[in-house]
């Protein structure tokens, strides 16, 4: 049992934290975020140089990481500065390409940006009801349907798309140039796209890809949860700091016992969220990965809302302003719940285990 990071991962965390803190501070972040393309190409290349992408895949696939803990280290650092770069798509795509033993040099070097298109408007979380479908045409296939909430899709070069083929979910590669991509910024600053497919040519990567897709989703959940932990740590530290400095009624408001106890309750939930994220990361790739990913995402959903709302409430008006960074952190925490399955969706997956 060892809850310390390995030396390599600690070095990666330190260098990412240092880089993002210096080069991607909140002013720059807010300039990049909330408006297309929600992306800074130069910073993306530098993040890649620092190894943020190589950490997402194992050595056998050309990277130097690839475990749940590697993913968590990268995303916790991204969370601490609310970095809006399209890293989630890369993490999930790297997982798929590794599973299929496909070349991912372009992904890991940052030369090509990948996005993974799974969700649909009527099937945002559970892909069983997916309606996007593929038919064989000539040497390849064509896809028809609409994929929604493709994170990072607004700048992606290549989409990995889930679609039904012969009654089972399959994975395809679609070039951005071949499809209609409608990008948009999100409430919490990062970008996404709708991917409109209408007889769009696609290359089949894997038929019967349910297990591979699940694994990619589980990895994405670990990434999101670790990101949320990074976000929550900053929010909590900022809030506690504010409690020490903001005075009302002649004393720092942190002297009010009610706020003290609520700050403690935030801390407790954050530590619980960190714990279950560690657990989900450790199980990634194993037989229990889905179960613990669901647990982590459920808890992150609850803790994230609590931390966001309490941080705003305890700050008062200042945290309601665009200018004060906590507002952006709070938005990220709240909106993250709707990515890759929300609190209730994941709870219902755990409930399904119970009934069995």
């Amino acid at each position: 049992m060892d809850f310390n990071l390995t030396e390599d991962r600690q070095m990666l965390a330190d260098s990412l934290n240092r880089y993002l803190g210096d080069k991607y501070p909140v002013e720059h972040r807010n300039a990049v975020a909330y408006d297309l393309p929600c992306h800074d190409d130069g910073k993306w290349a530098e993040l890649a140089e620092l190894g943020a992408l190589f950490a997402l895949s194992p050595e056998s696939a050309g990277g130097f990481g690839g475990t749940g803990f590697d993913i968590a280290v990268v995303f916790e650092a991204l969370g601490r500065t609310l970095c809006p770069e399209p890293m989630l798509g890369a993490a999930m795509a790297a997982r798929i390409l590794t599973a299929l033993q496909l070349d991912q040099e372009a992904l890991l070097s940052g030369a090509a940006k990948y996005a993974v298109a799974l969700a649909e408007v009527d099937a945002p979380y559970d892909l069983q009801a997916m309606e996007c479908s593929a038919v064989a045409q000539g040497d390849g296939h064509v896809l028809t349907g609409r994929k929604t909430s493709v994170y990072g899709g607004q700048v992606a070069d290549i989409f990995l798309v889930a679609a039904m083929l012969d009654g089972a979910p399959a994975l395809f590669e679609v070039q951005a140039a071949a499809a209609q991509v409608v990008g948009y910024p999100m409430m919490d600053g990062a970008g996404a796209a709708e991917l409109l497919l209408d007889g769009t040519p696609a290359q089949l990567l894997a038929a019967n890809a349910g297990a591979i897709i699940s694994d990619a989703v589980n990895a994405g959940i670990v990434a999101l949860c670790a990101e949320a932990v990074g976000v929550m740590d900053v929010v909590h530290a900022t809030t506690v700091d504010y409690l020490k400095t903001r005075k009302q009624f002649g004393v720092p408001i942190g002297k009010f016992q009610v706020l003290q106890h609520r700050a403690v309750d935030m801390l407790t939930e954050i530590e619980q969220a960190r714990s279950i994220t560690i657990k989900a990361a450790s199980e990634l790739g194993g037989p229990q990965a889905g179960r613990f990913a669901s647990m982590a995402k459920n808890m992150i959903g609850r803790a994230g809302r609590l931390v966001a709302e309490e941080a705003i409430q305890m700050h008062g008006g200042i945290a309601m302003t665009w200018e004060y960074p906590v507002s952006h952190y709070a938005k990220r925490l709240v909106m993250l719940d709707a990515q890759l399955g929300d609190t209730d969706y994941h709870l219902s997956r755990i409930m399904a285990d119970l009934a069995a």
Partner: protein
Amino acid sequence: MDLSFSENDIAFRDEVRSYLADNLPTAMTEAVRKGGELTKEMMEDWHVILQRKGWLATIWPKEYGGPGWTPVQRHIFEEECCRAYAPRIVPFGLNMLGPVLIEFGTQAQKDYYLPRILSGEDWWCQGYSEPGAGSDLASLKTRAVRDGDHWVINGQKTWTTLGQHADKIFCLCRTDAEAKQQQGISFILVDMNTPGIEVRPIRLIEGGHEVNEVFFTDVRVPVENLVGEENKGWTIAKFLLTHERTGIAGVGFSMQSLEEVKALARKMRRGGKRLIDDPLFAARIAQAEVDLEAMKITNLRMLFKAQQQGAPGPETSILKIKGTVIHQELKDLARRALGPVAAPFPGYLAEGNIMFGPDGTEHNAARYFNNRKTSIFGGSNEIQRNILSKAALEL
């Protein structure tokens, strides 16, 4: 015990309902339903529509142009306005300054200002909070110094709602620097066109602009703009905080939100079935509905008590605390019902000609975030709990 309205009240309700049906433009109700920001013109048009019927200054005595309603009638009117998705009335002149002038103003002040509020000629805003004086309003620092026939004001106000549209502002200023806290504060009326005033927008968490900072640099105001006695402004501030608290529970707005959530849960689909058929989500709605039904009665009980006693008691803080919690929960449910569909930043999808969720839901996430303010402003829920602890529980 009788929970039903009297025949007179029901006739009144029908009259309100019918006037709204005939006079409230569809464009307005559509804008309210969508929940984005209303234009200045819309707010002004609504003002005129109500004034035409004499239903504008609902809490003013009849002799000053109020409709002479009972608290129950006011409640019915507010509820019907919500039911019809009417815009909210801009309250600063009508519900705040008006009663203050009627209680504390000179005859000249009443004669001059009250008709201008009714006609809509003056759009008022509020200069209370300061960066260092939020929950602790009494620690405000904006100074007003007497110089001949003028007050000279220096300082900064913040959270001034709709100040960008306003012609005039009523301010709490410190007029005696030696006096402690609540003492030494005065209530002063200021024309926004006076030299030395600068209004800077505050962009809110969700991106909208409804509040402002107002800076005062050597702003000269005639001495007759003082309301009430010099250094007794705190009395007026307290009067405003406790005087008129109908509607504080926001029951009408919560009812709007509950209907919206139910409609969304029927429309949105989660993997082949309606969201409302998901027991976890249905349980959330049902729980909020129970809380809201209880709040409706709590609201009426406090209204009844206020009507019997002539003034609302400290228990009305319960309406603020629980009313905002319920409303915020419903806003959370609306965002949650939309799921990823709530994610896009409002405005972008129309440009891409892409429809996401049901019509009119584009602002849902923004409204969730914007509504976090309701448990902070007007005396935060923490302050309300302090009040209740002291006044109701005597702790």
